[in-house]
């Protein structure tokens, strides 16, 4: 099976030849790959070099934490990659639903519905673990449907507001 795996702006062609070999950008490598202890920790020997990484799914991507660096990887076969190209070209942006990353207390909401915000602007302050955490806008847009108010306690993953 051949995949195109993208990290940042780089693309790697990774072909899984058999249990012990992969071809990366045309070069064949001996691999010994293993999940450690039923955890998302994986051990990989590539041509003898020993690596260990955490690999977590993250929406459509994979987060690879390797030697203190985090890589965001997308793994697709050729058909999927083509498809995505088409979809992305067709749609433009879309809504962003701000969710509570953990249970906590809404301290303040420095924005109002209808307000235009820029990427990086603070949308909401959530107190948890004795810390005030600023939740920021991941994109430019207009604030819509604020579903919570200061002083309210929220569960993890609760939708807080929307930026469209």
């Amino acid at each position, binding site marked *: *099976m051949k*995949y195109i*795996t993208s*990290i*940042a702006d*780089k693309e*790697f062609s*990774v072909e*899984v030849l058999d249990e012990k070999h*992969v071809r*990366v*950008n045309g070069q064949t*490598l001996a*691999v010994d*790959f293993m*999940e450690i*202890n039923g*955890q*998302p*920790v*994986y051990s*990989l020997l*590539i041509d003898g070099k020993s*690596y260990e*990484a*955490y*690999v977590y*799914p993250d929406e459509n991507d*994979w987060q*690879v*934490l*390797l*030697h*203190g*660096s*985090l*890589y965001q*990887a997308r*793994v697709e076969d050729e058909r999927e990659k083509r498809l995505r190209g088409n979809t992305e070209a067709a749609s433009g942006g879309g809504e962003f639903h701000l969710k509570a*990353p*953990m*249970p*906590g207390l809404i301290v303040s909401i420095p924005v109002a519905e209808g307000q235009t915000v820029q990427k990086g602007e603070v949308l909401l302050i959530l107190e*948890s*673990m*004795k*810390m005030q*955490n*600023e939740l*920021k806008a991941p994109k430019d847009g207009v604030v819509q449907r604020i579903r919570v108010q200061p002083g309210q306690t929220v569960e*993890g993953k609760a939708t807080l507001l929307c930026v469209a």
Partner: protein
Amino acid sequence: MFNKVLIANRGEIAVRILRACREVGLETVAVFSEADRQALHVRLADEAYLLGPAPSRESYLRADKILEIAQQCKADAIHPGYGFLAEREDFAQACLDAGIVFIGPKPSSIAAMGDKMTARDTVRKAGVPVVPGTEDVGDLSDADLLAIAPKIGFPLLIKATAGGGGKGMREVRSLEEMPGLLQSARREAESAFGDGNVYLEKLVEGARHIEIQILADAHGNVIHLNERECSIQRRHQKLVEEAPSPFLDEELRQKMGEVAVKAAKAVDYLNAGTIEFLVDKDRNFYFLEMNTRLQVEHPITEMVTGIDIVKEQLRIARGRPLQYKQEDVKINGAAMECRINAEDPYNGFMPSTGKINHSLLPTGPGVRVDTGVYPGFEITPYYDPMISKLIVWGETRAQAILRMRRALEEYRIVGVRTNIPFHQTLMDSHRFMGGQYDTRFVEERFSIQEENNPQQQEIAAVFATLVAPIQTARAAQFVQRNERDTSNWKWVGRWERMHR
């Protein structure tokens, strides 16, 4: 003298204190909230009593309940740890009134140092240099402060009188922005300490945060255990500490130590405490505040001096004289501490909650891990996000950094995100290695996003490509596993018959 110590705290510091008590033959009593029934301090203590629901104010801040438990179980001493009730003079007083030894300073010393303006005033009068700022003790109105500000000069800091942990602190660059900042600082201070009073201090730019550990016994002996460098901070939260400081020379070290002893004596100090200083580029140092309790970062001092600070606290509280004289205190090698927090350094240091599914502690020579968690334990949103303290010792600072790197590389925590990658990046940073940093370093001149490393990217790509089909196929595998597991099917069949 006392025989049974109630530890009015949780997490790693409760475990740390419990260990010291056990090693000197004292019985230990843990207290816990409903969220902490399985916490390590409960598992390891001789006795353990429930305080109440998870929120601190209904559990670890319930001074009344803690005293009641102490009296019922006949604990004759209380160690408050840090945070929670550690710097509440009323709690210290209530212990004394109940005939229970409070393992810490006298209530009057806590009070004198707890009000940050009073503290400034007291030590200034004893000849300790303080940062220029508001000098009158008392409640200052916004109008007073706006009038004084230009005399101090900008930039300056608004600080909460009841202070600590950066709460209610605001940096002011101009008179125009001051009214708004005053308002928000007072609001934050009010919510954090129940006291909205603030004062002003000149902002010392490019300063380092260096503190001196103090020990004082009931026989008038006060010594210092040299300094800890704590300038690696983010939002006024310390992240990495080291001893000795790469910035001090022997002369300044001695001078700051002497001044720290003077400050401690000015409030008739007893037990362990820490004088925090700001040190500017020109090696001028200014008193910041005194923490009248055990510090989170005390282990690095233990590692370079060989003195067990918590055991010394117990000795002092028992009325015994200090085991050490000033001339016995020597610095051997270098120690460093990384605070391992459940927070995501790739996502604005957002706290991360969840169950620690798996963990692998770094061990071996020169490595100490102080922790209150274990695999299977749940990190809840109720308390601070510190999972553990990773402390290393090396013969030199360079060796300590190399050892810290290897320990961080070994450390595995699965289930919550941690700031380990932050520490790894920091330990690789040339400025940190060179000892060239101040309190703004992390926020202003440090980034966890490294330059691209194409070789590592390729490895990461191989990992992702190999993991993706496994994880995607996991649900399908689940069915296959069930297929083989006949004992499982037997039960499922029975269940189905029952519900048909």
